[in-house]
């Protein structure tokens, strides 16, 4: 029973990471690294939280979160693609802005006014029949709607990337944008598209935290998940299935950390809290030189 609970929590904790990392895989395949995912997640989180709080609609909250993150993602795309700014600096600025904007809105709208601030959350929906499969059922099929969405999104995004002409163009634009330009494909639009897609998913991953994982917003609640998702992408060799598995690994670290904290062990809770970060460093060291990164990653495209 304990194991089932742990694995079920693993899947729940993995979901937001997988969303964000799928988006970033697209973005990096197209040649743009966005280290501002953390900021975008925070934007998504505060937007979803505020929207759900005032409208009571979870669906609206999720849509709003994606749109808000896309708005900021558009700003990032403008600087990184059109202005050809350094992607690391731009992403760093995006993180500051995300942290600032989410904190500002939270304090102005909620903390300062003393509104009671729990919101309703996505319920677990046991799937008929499937959830009754022993062992796997409660782990995989008694989850909230966003977890199921990740199950669907993973194969779809993998298929689009590998088997369609759009995916072909995306893979090409991150390797050799000039070749893509020379056959008349729009390099900038492809990159904008991937950045916006990644932003939407980062917004969704951020929204997951206050309305599926907890029922609260806390300043900086993403706690580095954006960076962890960023690390998962090279670890997964820039593939979607890899990102899915990597997400489960980190989900397990989070789930384990929570379990152990509850278990009142003699280990200081601060060390348990750093578990995902230590795992990230370990993964970074293990994933060295496993696959070549997209050739044009972080290189702005200069036409003509």
């Amino acid at each position, binding site marked *: 029973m304990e194991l089932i609970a742990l694995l079920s929590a693993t899947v729940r904790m993995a979901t937001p990471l997988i969303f964000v990392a799928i988006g970033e895989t697209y973005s990096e395949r197209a040649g743009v690294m966005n280290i501002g995912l953390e900021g975008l997640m925070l934007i998504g989180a505060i937007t979803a939280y505020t929207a759900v709080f005032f409208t009571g609609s979870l669906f609206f909250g999720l849509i709003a979160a994606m749109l808000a993150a896309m708005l900021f993602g558009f700003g990032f795309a403008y600087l990184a693609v059109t202005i050809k700014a350094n992607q690391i600096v731009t992403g760093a600025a995006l993180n500051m802005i995300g942290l600032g904007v989410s904190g500002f809105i939270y304090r102005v709208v909620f903390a300062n006014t003393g509104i009671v601030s729990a919101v309703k959350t996505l319920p677990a929906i046991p799937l008929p029949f499937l959830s009754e499969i022993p062992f796997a059922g409660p782990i995989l099929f008694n989850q909230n709607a966003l977890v199921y969405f990740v199950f669907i999104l993973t194969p779809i995004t993998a298929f689009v990337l590998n088997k369609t002409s759009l995916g072909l163009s995306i893979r090409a634009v991150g390797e050799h944008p000039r070749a893509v330009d020379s056959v008349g494909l729009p390099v900038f639009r492809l990159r904008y598209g991937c950045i916006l897609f990644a932003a939407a998913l980062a917004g969704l991953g951020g929204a997951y935290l206050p309305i599926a994982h907890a029922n609260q917003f806390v300043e900086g609640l993403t706690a580095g998940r954006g960076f962890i998702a960023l690390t998962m992408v090279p670890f997964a060799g820039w593939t979607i299935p890899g990102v899915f598995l990597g997400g489960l690994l980190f989900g397990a670290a989070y789930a384990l950390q929570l379990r152990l904290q509850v278990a009142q062990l003699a280990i200081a809770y601060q060390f348990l809290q750093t578990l995902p*970060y230590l795992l990230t460093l370990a993964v970074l060291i293990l994933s060295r030189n496993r696959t070549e990164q997209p050739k044009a990653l972080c290189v702005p495209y200069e036409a003509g």
Partner: protein
Amino acid sequence: MSEPSTTPAMPKPPASRLDLRSRSGQLWGAVRRSLMPLLAVAAALLVGAILLLIFGYDPIQAYATMWHGIFGSQRNISEVLLKATPVVFTGVAVAIAYSCGIWNIGAEGQFYLGAIGATYVGVYWGDLPGFALLLLVMFAGFIGGGLWAVIPGLLKTWINANEVVVTIMLNYIALGISSYLVTGPMKEASGYFPQTDMIADAARLPRIWLPTRLHVGVILAVILAILVTILLYRTPLGFEIRTIGSNRNAARFAGMPVKRTIIIAMLLSGGSAGLGGAVEIAGLTGRLFAHISPGYGFDGIAVSLIVNNNPLGTIFSGLLFGGLRAGSEIMQISAGIPSVLIQIIQGMTIAFVIAFGVYNILQTQQQKI
């Protein structure tokens, strides 16, 4: 693509419009470079004002409060200098690493490790003779922060690990360590609060503007910025650091010890941030507690970037952001406007600096070392 080297390089977008080679062009370029960051800050403040309007505040009143918070009194001015001090340290830290082509987003963590090292020496070795203790406290800060930054340096040179991710992770881990120490092994002997004991009096930095809290650390910050500038522009080591930062391949070609230099640069970078932590402990707080830094390490990124990572420039940008932070805290107290506004303004400032294309910020290097 068209016959590469005959059409002279790619024209840099910002400079191509005016002929930088002419003398008036050079002058104009210099003016532009020094005005643009200010313009970027102004634009960021404007964005802040719009945000304030949206949420029903009067931006003029808010900024007036902030202005008062900066210049309103002797005490306020001293607080600005106090806030500027740590961000000059972290700004210099970011600038050194950047000169070597490394993005040190981890000044926050290095600041913490410096503070921890300084506190340890100040509390537990308190009976050392006066000045020696103070020196040792500073040295412990330097080493604490420096070694923490050597980790991403080693990972960078060893497996070409993305230093951004590594330094961010180390920030979280540093916070965890600090939090653990002040609740556990280093918790104050008598009290209830999660903080350490006070460091020995001999380990404290002298105050220089009584009755305010301003201490000699502010002067140390300026000296550090000057020393680092001399190091970078007047010594062989600095030349190596800058060459590696501009073109790692050329550095190898020229026979420079690339890996060793990156490690040294990271030691100096983290050391600067760590010194900042030590100065904060020895000059201001006198003890370590869990959230000793409200984000000074992250401020350092903006401080360094808006002056094109020029260590001397961080004195001015440090004052600017120190002022904004001090002012925003007053604004929070007297007008109830959350001081996180400052984070938005910093982020927007960087965005505007990029958008105005003032500097040709170097593209992240892809080459293996």
